[in-house]
């Protein structure tokens, strides 16, 4: 029994060819088919190796293997740690393991010692020996402990403010299990919901449970998942499909990536349950090609699930067949839209089609199709396991459960957070997120990517749920949350998002294809100080028309960044148009750099660094900038040690 999933001895005969309904439970609580203390022991050992209970004689060094930590060198770190463990002769009681993302990406690579819960940040391979040496003596490597801006240190995982405010239910596994080992997932209780469903529930009961839970789609629109499943169940067709939408394309969103990288089996389990509930035997995961690690882990997860009989024919001897194919996207944001995604799976251009018919009636290959996003599906096993009633205790009445957000921008703690629905923006940004970086003032938060809106100071006490946000012109979107400080120009932000949607428009419908182009051109003119008030009126009209008449949800939502900034930061637009001024000093054409004669010491640093020789001045004499030559690159500002360069 090399693996928890293996047969413990010759009496255990499970294989996909001879599936047994008790297989999953038998792994963790068994053996059921025979009595053998030895076999029971083997199981316990395997499980302890994953769960690492305190009080045991066993320790684990967990290294974050999310994309963020991987890019800051966590792979090399694992090697160094393993080497150090070997050198210290601890290899029989200390394991080094790579898991999924811990969400605290800014501070990576992250190391987490179990069962003590010691948490190290920014760990380098050179730190490996110190970490290992202190395992035995229970000491903490102080220099690697997380410290906040005020200098307080937090050596334990649960004390860190970033985690303290979170409710980790979806992300728990991400920081604890090896995503490439199905046995890890099973050891922490994985696939038990599937067993429950297959053994004790009818498809109708599953759908009812999901409906009772109030689960709403986490992809952005917040459509009730149970309702969707029920509609697909009703469609009287032989062939139906389950699609997992893993085409997470919003700039600044990486929730789904983290789930897929850190806990792929939870998504597979959700899909299999969905298939059972709806009466489908084939699932597809459509994952964007820009997520190579997620693709790799999904491939291995699917392969392992097949190998152990959790995918394929007659799953766990229930008579239910279900398999999953992985489809890689080819680089088109619009494929996040359900019908475009289906077209893409069919090998066509990812152009949305009109609804109705809804996908649940006629979706992929014209067959009833349920399309759920990654996070939604990951919620499913949880709901089955907890029960709808328990699940509803999380979050709000209309938006139960938790939501994962990708916090980014000018925050102290950017990263991935999971909080119950209904927390206020303030709690998330200033609590979990640690507030604005460098002591600057909060200006706005952009939610929901190119489909979402920008909210301002006055919205900070709004609860974050589907309905509250849409009432003020924003959406929860898929969960991207970009926080901006006073240095951000809202016209520039609107321009940025429009440039994105314009580039990603599929071109099928007139308003989106032509309208976003003109909206972008107007915003560009505004940023250059060339726009008029007529342009502003045109922009507002275009926003209305594009919103009202575009074919798909992406087109309809793409004016939101403009509309919301116009609504809450109108004076900034007016400054650009009327005064030809960018208050935040972001729009290059509207910015002037000037040297404050009183502060300039004539050190010559700016003069030396100016790429276009626009700065003149004698040494030790105040310098000056020649506006006609200045290209507004801002180098002088960043180089000046005396804050003598002023941007206006």
């Amino acid at each position, binding site marked *: 029994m090399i693996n928890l999933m293996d047969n413990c001895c010759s009496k255990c005969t499970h294989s996909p060819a001879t599936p047994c309904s008790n297989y999953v439970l038998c792994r963790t609580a068994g053996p059921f088919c025979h009595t053998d203390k030895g076999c029971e022991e083997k199981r316990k050992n395997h499980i302890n190796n994953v769960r690492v209970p305190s009080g045991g004689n066993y320790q684990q060094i967990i290294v974050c293997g999310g994309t963020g930590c991987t890019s800051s060198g966590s792979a090399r770190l694992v090697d160094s740690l393993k080497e150090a463990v070997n050198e210290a002769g601890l290899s029989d009681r200390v394991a080094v393991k790579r898991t999924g993302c811990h969400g605290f990406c800014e501070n990576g690579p992250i190391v987490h010692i179990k069962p003590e819960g010691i948490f190290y940040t920014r760990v380098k391979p050179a730190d490996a020996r110190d970490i290992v040496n202190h395992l035995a003596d229970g000491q903490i490597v102080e220099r690697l402990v997380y410290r906040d801006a005020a200098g307080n240190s937090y050596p334990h995982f649960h004390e860190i403010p970033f985690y303290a405010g979170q409710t980790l239910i979806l992300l728990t596994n991400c920081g604890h299990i090896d995503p490439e080992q199905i046995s890890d997932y099973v050891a922490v209780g994985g696939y038990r919901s599937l067993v429950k469903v297959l053994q004790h529930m009818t498809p109708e009961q599953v759908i009812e449970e999901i409906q009772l839970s109030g689960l709403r789609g986490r992809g952005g629109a917040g459509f009730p998942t149970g309702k969707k499943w029920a509609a697909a169940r009703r469609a009287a067709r032989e062939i139906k499909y389950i699609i997992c939408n893993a085409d997470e394309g919003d700039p600044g969103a990486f929730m789904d990536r983290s789930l897929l990288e850190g806990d792929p089996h939870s998504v597979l389990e959700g899909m299999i349950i969905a298939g059972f509930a709806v009466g489908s035997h084939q699932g597809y995961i459509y994952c964007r090609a820009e997520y190579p690690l997620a693709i790799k882990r999904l491939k291995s997860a699917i392969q392992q699930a097949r190998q152990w009989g959790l995918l394929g024919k007659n799953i766990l001897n229930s008579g239910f067949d279900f398999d999953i194919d992985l489809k890689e996207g080819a680089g088109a944001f619009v494929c996040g839209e359900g019908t475009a995604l289906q077209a893409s799976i069919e090998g066509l251009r990812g152009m949305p089609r009109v609804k109705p018919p809804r996908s649940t009636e006629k979706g992929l290959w014209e067959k009833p199709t349920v399309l759920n996003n990654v996070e939604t599906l990951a919620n499913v096993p949880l709901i089955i396991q907890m029960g709808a009633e328990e699940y509803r205790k999380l979050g709000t009445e209309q938006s139960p459960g938790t939501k994962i957000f990708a916090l980014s921008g000018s925050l102290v703690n950017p990263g991935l957070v999971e909080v119950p629905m209904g927390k206020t923006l303030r709690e998330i940004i200033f609590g979990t997120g640690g507030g604005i970086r460098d002591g600057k003032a909060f200006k706005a938060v952009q939610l929901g990517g190119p489909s979402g809106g920008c909210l301002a100071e006055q919205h900070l006490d709004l609860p974050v749920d589907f309905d509250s946000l849409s009432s003020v012109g924003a959406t929860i979107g898929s969960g991207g949350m970009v926080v901006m400080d006073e240095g951000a120009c809202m016209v520039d932000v609107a321009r940025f998002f429009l440039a994105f949607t314009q580039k990603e428009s*599929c071109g099928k419908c007139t308003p989106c294809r032509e309208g976003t182009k003109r909206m972008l051109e107007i915003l560009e003119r505004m940023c250059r100080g060339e726009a008029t008030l007529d342009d502003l009126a045109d922009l507002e009209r275009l926003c209305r028309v594009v919103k009202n008449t575009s074919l798909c949800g992406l087109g309809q939502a793409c004016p939101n960044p403009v509309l919301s900034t116009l609504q809450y930061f109108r004076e900034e637009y007016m400054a650009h148009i009327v005064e030809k001024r960018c208050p935040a000093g972001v729009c290059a054409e509207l910015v002037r750099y000037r040297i404050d004669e009183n502060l300039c010491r004539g050190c010559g640093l700016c003069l030396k*660094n100016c790429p276009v020789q626009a700065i003149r001045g004698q040494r030790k004499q105040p310098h000056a900038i020649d506006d006609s030559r200045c290209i507004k690159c801002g180098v002088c500002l960043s180089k000046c040690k005396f804050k003598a360069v002023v941007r206006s």
Partner: protein
Amino acid sequence: MQECHCEDKQMKLAQLLLKYKDTPGALIPVLQQAQEIFGYLSPELLREISAGLRIPLSRTYGVATFYSQFHLKPRGRNIIKVCQGTACHVRGGSKVLEAIKRYVGVETGETSEDLRFTLETVACLGACGLAPVMMVNEETEGQLTPDKAVKKIADCE
């Protein structure tokens, strides 16, 4: 010079088309894998894929031009992006570009015959303080002279 593996590649393509010829919706995975084999999707390749999958060439072309992942012109193993922003220009960016062109032997927007390099220019890399600047693959290289730029590129495989 690397050995030519044309026959190998054709064989792989034939296998690929055989594998997928009766699979509905196979066009995108086939284009992805064909691009992996050949580096880019040439007109001949698109023709072969269309014929092999019995998909109208117009549709294959439509799909290949829709998704940003697909390249219809060869791309080099190394992508050089030379900044042509104002700062780089006045600091001798064009001399750097000329030197690179001479070394690589292609014009802007082209790829060398041995597929070692693709040379592109960009409007501004936003690193004006380091001008002149270029990006080689993921690395930004600043304060270039023609010699320094060529030396950097010569290190690329």
